[in-house]
C-alpha cells in the first residue's frame, strides 16, 4: 500500500517510535552517504499558502538526499488563482514528481489529495487541522534531549486554545506513558476542554496556571507558542497578556541543567533573545531536527530503508 503522512491520529505509538528511530539513523549518516539516497527523485512542494520555514526545511531535506525540488509557494502566481480546482492541480503536479508535499489553508486537503494522487502525499499543514511533520520533529527533539518521552513533565505556555502545534503534540504525547502536563495561558487562550478531558481520561496529570514561572519550575521542558494579537478583541487586553508570557534568561536561573525551552518558530517577543545563549535554548536545534525528521519521512514514503 502506498504510504502517505496525513495525520498524527493515523499513527500508532509503534509507528511514531519507528519514525523517531528512523530519524536518528538519518542523523547519524554522513552528508556524503545521504546525498545519494534519493538521487533522481523529485519532490513537488505545493504551498497554497506561504510558510517559508516549513518549505525551506522540506527543500533542504530533499536536496541533501540528492533529490530535486519543483513547486510553488505563491498562490497568486499559479493557475489556482485562475480557478483551477485543487484536485486538477494535484493531478497535474503529480506527473512531474515522485512525492508531494502539500500545505493549504483549508482543512482536509492533504487527505483529499491522497484520493486522486498516484504518488505519496505528505501533509505540511491543512488549515487548523494537522501538521504532522512538526509534531514528529517535536517528538524527535524531546527524545534526543531527554532520551525518552515516557514520564516527562512538559509545560505548554502561550496560546493553547488555537495552536494547532500544541494540540497535535498533545495528542501524540497522550500515546506515551505517564507524561505530565503544565498548562500556562491567559484565560482567553486556555486549552479546549475536550483536550483536557481526553488527557485526564487517559491518565495524564494536568496542572493549569496563569503564571509562566509555574510552567518553568518543576518541568523538564517548556514548549512556548506565539500569542497573536488578532485573538484579542481589545488591544489593551492583548498588551497586558503578552507581557505576562515572555520568557527571559533571568527566569531560567536555578533551572536544572537538562531543562529545555522549545518553540515552533517564528517567535515574536515571547522568548527574549538573552535566552538564546543559555544551555536551555532548544529551539534552534529543533529546527535542525526538523530536517532529519523530514528526511526520514521522505525516505519512508519513498520506501527507502536504511
Amino acid at each position: 500500500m502506498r504510504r502517505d503522512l496525513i495525520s498524527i491520529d493515523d499513527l500508532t505509538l509503534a509507528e511514531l517510535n519507528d519514525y523517531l528511530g528512523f530519524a536518528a539513523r538519518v542523523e547519524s549518516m554522513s552528508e556524503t552517504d545521504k546525498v545519494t539516497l534519493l538521487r533522481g527523485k523529485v519532490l513537488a512542494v505545493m504551498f497554497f499558502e506561504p510558510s517559508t520555514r516549513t518549505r525551506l526545511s522540506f527543500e533542504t531535506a530533499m536536496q541533501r538526499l540528492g533529490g530535486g525540488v519543483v513547486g510553488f509557494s505563491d498562490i497568486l502566481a499559479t493557475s489556482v488563482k485562475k480557478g483551477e480546482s485543487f484536485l486538477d492541480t494535484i493531478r497535474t503536479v503529480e506527473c512531474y514528481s515522485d512525492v508531494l508535499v502539500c500545505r493549504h489553508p483549508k482543512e482536509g486537503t492533504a487527505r483529499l489529495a491522497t484520493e486522486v494522487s498516484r504518488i505519496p502525499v505528505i501533509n505540511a499543514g491543512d488549515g487548523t487541522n494537522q501538521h504532522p511533520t512538526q509534531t514528529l520533529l517535536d517528538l524527535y527533539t524531546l527524545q534526543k534531549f531527554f532520551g525518552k518521552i515516557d514520564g516527562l513533565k512538559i509545560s505548554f505556555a502561550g496560546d493553547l486554545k488555537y495552536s494547532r502545534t500544541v494540540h497535535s503534540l498533545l495528542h501524540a504525547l497522550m500515546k506515551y506513558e505517564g507524561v505530565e502536563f503544565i498548562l500556562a495561558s491567559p484565560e482567553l487562550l486556555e486549552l479546549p476542554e475536550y483536550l483536557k478531558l481526553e488527557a485526564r481520561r487517559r491518565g495524564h496529570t494536568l496542572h493549569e496556571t496563569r503564571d509562566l514561572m509555574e510552567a518553568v519550575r518543576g518541568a523538564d521542558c517548556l514548549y512556548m507558542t506565539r500569542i497573536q494579537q488578532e485573538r484579542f478583541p481589545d488591544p489593551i487586553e492583548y498588551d497586558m497578556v503578552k507581557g505576562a508570557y515572555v520568557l527571559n534568561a533571568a527566569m531560567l536561573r536555578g533551572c536544572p541543567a537538562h531543562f529545555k525551552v522549545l518553540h515552533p518558530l517564528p517567535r515574536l517577543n515571547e522568548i527574549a533573545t538573552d535566552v538564546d545563549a543559555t544551555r536551555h535554548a532548544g529551539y534552534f536545534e529543533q529546527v535542525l531536527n526538523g530536517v532529519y525528521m523530514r528526511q526520514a519521512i521522505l525516505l519512508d514514503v519513498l520506501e527507502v530503508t536504511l
Partner: protein
Amino acid sequence: MSDARHPDSDDRRESDRRTTELIPKIEQGIVIDHIPAGRGVHVLAAVRGYPGMENTLISVGLNYASTKLGKKDILKLSTTNMPDEVIEHVALVAPRVSIKRICDYQVDKKYVIEFPQTISNKLRCRNSNCITNYEDRVTTVFRCFDSMTRQVKCGHCERIFFLDELDLIRATD
C-alpha cells in the same frame, strides 16, 4: 425459527391489535419497526428517494403503542429487497430500528440496524473551512466516533460532530 419465538411483546400483541390498526398485516414485504415516534417521516424520506424504490408501495403508521418505546412509528413496504444503501441511510435518520422481512405473513428474518461504522457520501460537513465544501466531485466520508452519543468524525477535516448537527446529502440531489 428462533426470531419468531423471541418474546417481543410488540410482535405478540400485533395480532391482537390488528383490527384496530390502520395498516393491515402484509403477506410479503419489509416492516421497518420500532422507529422512535416522530422519526417515521424521516425514515420515509430516506427510503422513498432511492432509485429502485419508486414503484414500492409504502404504508406509514405513526404514533403506534409500543411497550419498548411508549410510542413508535412503523413503515411497511411491498418489496422484500431493500438495498444496503437504503438500510444504511435509515440507520442514520433513526437509531436502532428493527427490520423484519415478511414472507407468507410470517417474520422470515429480523434484525436491528446498528449505527454505521462508515458513512460515505450521505452527509455534508459543517466545518465551513472543510475542503469537501469547496471541491466538486468529492465524496464525503464520516466515521463513527462514538455510537452511544451518535458522534461522527469527518474523514477529511477530522472534526467531530453529533450526527444530528449534519445535513444529509439527498439522494435526489
